C-alpha cells in the first residue's frame, strides 16, 4: 500500500486542537469531525460500561448467602434489566462501530471524513438522547423496568413498571444505529481513495460494511416491534396479548429477528479489529484475505436467519425448531473460517508479543468457548436442558464480553497511540491482563457449570447446592473488575502523562498508520493513492 507523506501531515495541528470558530466543550458538541465524534462515543461508552459493571457487581453480591437480603427481589429484577439494557444497547451494540468505526473507517480507506458528517453527529445525539431516556426510565413512572432486556410480551405489556419509556429509549437508540449504518455503507461505496479497490480494503472496513447492512435491514424490525409494545401498553391494541387474540410468540419472532443479528452487529466489528491486530504483530500478511471478507458477509447473511434458536422452548413448531437448529449450525462455519485464518496468520509469523496481541489472542480463546457453547445450544436436545439457566448467561458473556468486550480493549490498546498520540505503559497493560483473564473465567466458566447443574437465570435466591459456585463466581467478579480498573487507570494516566507515540509505533501496514498521531483534522495532507494489498510487509519505517 502506498504511503503518503506522514511528515507533511505531522506539521498540521491535530484534530484535538480546536480549529473552528468555537472552542472548548462547544467545539466538541458541534463537531462534524469523525474522529472527535468517535472519541465522544468512547467517553460515553466507557462511562456506561463501568455503570453496567457496577450494577453487575451488585447482582453478584446478592448471590452471596450472607448478603442475600441486601435488596428486594423487585430491585434485583430491575438491576438485571438495567444491567442488560445498558450493556447491550449502550455499550456492546454500538461499541466498536461507533468508536473505532467512526474514527478509523475514513482513515483506513483514505478519506477525509464519512459521507454524511452532520448525520454522524446527529447519530451521536440520538445515542445520547436514548441513553438519557433509558436512565430517566429508572426514576420515573412506575420505577425501573423489570422485564429483562428482552422486554418479552405479554409481561412487558402488563407490568406496571416504566417499560414504555425504556422501550422508547431503545427505539431512539435504534435510529442512531441505522443512521450510522447508512453513513458507513455510503462512505465505503463512495469515498475510497484512488486505487483502493474492494479487495484492497482493510478487513476492519469489510466487517463494518457487513455490520452496517445488518444495522440497516434488521434494526427497523425492532423499532416497529417496540412501537407495537408501546401501543399495546397505551391503547391495548391486542397484537401480542393472547387475551385479545394476539400472539406473544410473534413478539419473540420480531424481537429476535433484530436481536440475534444484533449479536453479529456486536461481534463482527470485533472480529474486524482482531483481524487488523494479528497481521501487524505476526509481521506477515493475513492468511485468506478474501475468505475473511466473505465470511464477514456470510455471518451477516446467515446470522440474520437463525433468530428462532432463542425460541426452541417457547412453543414454536417442531418444523421451525429443526430449520432454525440447522441454520444455527451453518452460521458456525464462517466464524470458524475466521478463527482458522487468524491462527494460520500467526503460523510461522515473526511474533511481536505486544499488549494488543495478548488481548487479541485472549479474544480468540474466549470467543471459541463462547462460540462452541453456542453450537451446543443449537442442538435441540441440549437446548431443552440448558434453556434459561446460567449456562446461557455464561455463554452470552463469553461471546459478548470475552468476545466483543476483550476485542474492544484489544482495539483500544492497538489504536490508542494513534487516537491520542500518547503511549500507555505496556507493562501495566500486561499486568492488567492477568486479573481480567482469571477473574473472567472464574466468573463465567462457573456460570456455565452452574447452568449445567440446573441453576436458573434471573433468580433472586438459589438453592444451597449452588452456594459454592456462586461464591467462586462472585469472587471472580471482584478480580475481573480489579483488572479492568488497572487497565483503564493505565489509559487515563497515559492520556495526561503518557510518552509521545510516533506515527506508527507498532509497524502497522494500513493507511491510518501513514498519517500523524493524533491525525490532523483532514486526516491526510494529500489523499493517498493505493497501489497494493492492505497487509503488505515489511512496512517501511516511519518516524
Amino acid at each position, binding site marked *: 500500500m502506498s504511503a503518503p507523506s506522514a511528515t507533511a501531515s505531522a506539521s498540521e495541528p491535530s484534530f484535538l486542537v480546536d480549529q473552528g470558530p468555537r472552542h472548548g466543550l462547544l467545539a466538541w458538541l458541534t463537531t462534524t469531525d469523525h474522529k472527535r465524534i468517535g472519541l465522544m462515543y468512547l467517553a460515553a461508552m466507557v462511562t456506561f460500561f463501568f455503570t453496567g459493571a457496577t450494577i453487575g457487581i451488585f447482582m453478584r453480591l446478592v448471590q452471596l448467602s450472607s448478603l442475600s437480603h441486601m435488596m428486594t427481589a423487585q430491585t434485583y429484577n430491575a438491576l438485571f434489566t438495567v444491567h442488560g439494557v445498558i450493556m447491550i444497547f449502550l455499550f456492546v451494540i454500538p461499541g466498536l462501530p461507533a468508536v473505532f468505526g467512526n474514527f478509523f473507517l475514513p482513515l483506513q480507506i483514505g478519506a477525509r471524513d464519512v459521507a454524511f458528517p452532520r448525520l454522524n453527529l446527529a447519530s451521536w445525539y440520538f445515542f445520547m438522547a436514548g441513553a438519557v431516556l433509558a436512565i430517566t426510565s429508572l426514576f420515573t413512572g412506575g420505577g425501573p423496568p423489570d422485564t429483562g432486556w428482552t422486554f418479552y410480551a405479554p409481561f412487558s405489556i402488563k407490568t406496571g413498571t416504566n417499560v414504555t419509556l425504556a422501550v422508547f429509549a431503545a427505539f431512539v437508540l435504534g435510529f442512531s444505529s441505522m443512521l450510522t449504518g447508512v453513513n458507513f455503507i455510503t462512505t465505503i461505496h463512495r469515498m475510497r481513495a484512488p486505487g483502493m479497490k474492494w479487495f484492497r480494503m482493510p478487513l476492519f472496513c469489510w466487517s463494518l460494511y457487513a455490520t452496517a447492512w445488518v444495522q440497516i*435491514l434488521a434494526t427497523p*424490525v425492532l423499532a416497529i416491534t417496540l412501537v407495537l409494545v408501546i401501543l399495546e401498553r397505551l391503547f391495548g391494541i391486542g397484537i401480542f396479548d393472547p387475551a385479545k387474540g394476539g400472539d406473544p*410468540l410473534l413478539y419473540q*419472532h420480531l424481537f429476535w*429477528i433484530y436481536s440475534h443479528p444484533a449479536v453479529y452487529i456486536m461481534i463482527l466489528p470485533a472480529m474486524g479489529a482482531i483481524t487488523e491486530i494479528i497481521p501487524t504483530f505476526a509481521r506477515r500478511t493475513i492468511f485468506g484475505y478474501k475468505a475473511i471478507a466473505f465470511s464477514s458477509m456470510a455471518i451477516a447473511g446467515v446470522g*440474520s*436467519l437463525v*433468530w*428462532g434458536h432463542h*425460541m426452541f422452548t417457547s*412453543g*414454536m*413448531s*417442531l*418444523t*421451525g425448531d429443526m*430449520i*432454525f437448529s440447522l441454520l444455527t449450525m451453518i452460521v458456525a462455519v464462517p466464524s470458524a473460517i475466521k478463527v482458522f485464518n487468524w491462527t494460520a496468520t500467526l503460523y510461522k509469523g515473526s511474533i511481536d508479543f505486544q499488549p494488543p496481541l495478548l488481548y487479541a489472542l485472549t479474544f480468540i480463546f474466549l470467543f471459541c468457548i463462547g462460540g462452541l457453547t453456542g453450537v451446543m445450544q443449537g442442538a435441540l436436545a441440549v437446548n431443552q436442558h440448558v434453556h434459561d439457566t446460567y449456562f446461557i448467561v455464561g455463554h452470552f458473556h463469553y461471546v459478548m464480553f470475552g468476545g466483543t468486550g476483550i476485542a474492544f480493549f484489544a482495539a483500544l490498546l492497538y489504536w490508542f497511540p494513534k487516537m491520542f498520540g500518547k503511549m500507555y505503559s505496556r507493562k501495566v497493560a500486561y499486568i492488567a491482563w492477568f486479573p481480567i483473564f482469571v477473574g473472567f473465567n472464574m466468573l463465567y466458566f462457573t456460570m456455565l457449570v452452574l447452568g449445567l447443574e440446573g441453576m436458573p437465570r434471573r433468580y433472586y435466591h438459589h438453592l444451597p447446592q449452588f452456594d459454592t459456585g456462586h461464591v467462586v463466581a462472585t469472587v471472580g467478579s471482584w478480580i475481573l473488575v480489579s483488572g479492568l480498573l488497572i487497565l483503564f487507570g493505565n489509559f487515563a494516566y497515559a492520556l495526561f502523562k503518557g510518552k509521545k507515540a510516533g506515527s506508527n509505533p507498532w509497524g502497522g501496514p494500513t493507511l491510518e498508520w501513514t498519517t500523524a498521531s493524533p491525525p490532523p483534522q483532514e486526516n491526510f495532507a494529500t489523499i493517498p493513492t493505493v497501489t497494493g494489498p492492505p497487509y503488505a510487509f515489511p512496512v517501511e519505517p516511519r518516524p
Partner: protein
Amino acid sequence: MTEQTKSMVEHPEESPGYGTFVAVWAALVVLTGLLVFVSHFGQKAAVWGLLTITPLKAGLVFYFFMHLKYEGPLVKGVVFVALGTLLIFFALTYADVAFR
C-alpha cells in the same frame, strides 16, 4: 461542487406528472376498498388479502411516489435486497406459524 450535485444539475430529476399521481392515488383507494371488502369473508381471506393487496399498494408507492421508477439499478437493487430479506423473514416465521 461535489460529483453528486453536479450529476443532479446535469440530470434534473424526472417527474411522473400530476396525472400519474392522481391515477396512483385512485388505485390505492380502490385497493384499500378491495382489502376491506375481502376481509368480510373471514380471517383467512383477510390474511391473504393483506399478504397480496398490501404489497401491491406498497409497490405503487415505491415505484411512483418514491420515484423508484426513475432510479438506477443500484438503488433498485438495494430495494430488492430489502424486500428479499423481508420475504425470507416471512418464510422462516411461516415455518413456525404454519406447523404449530
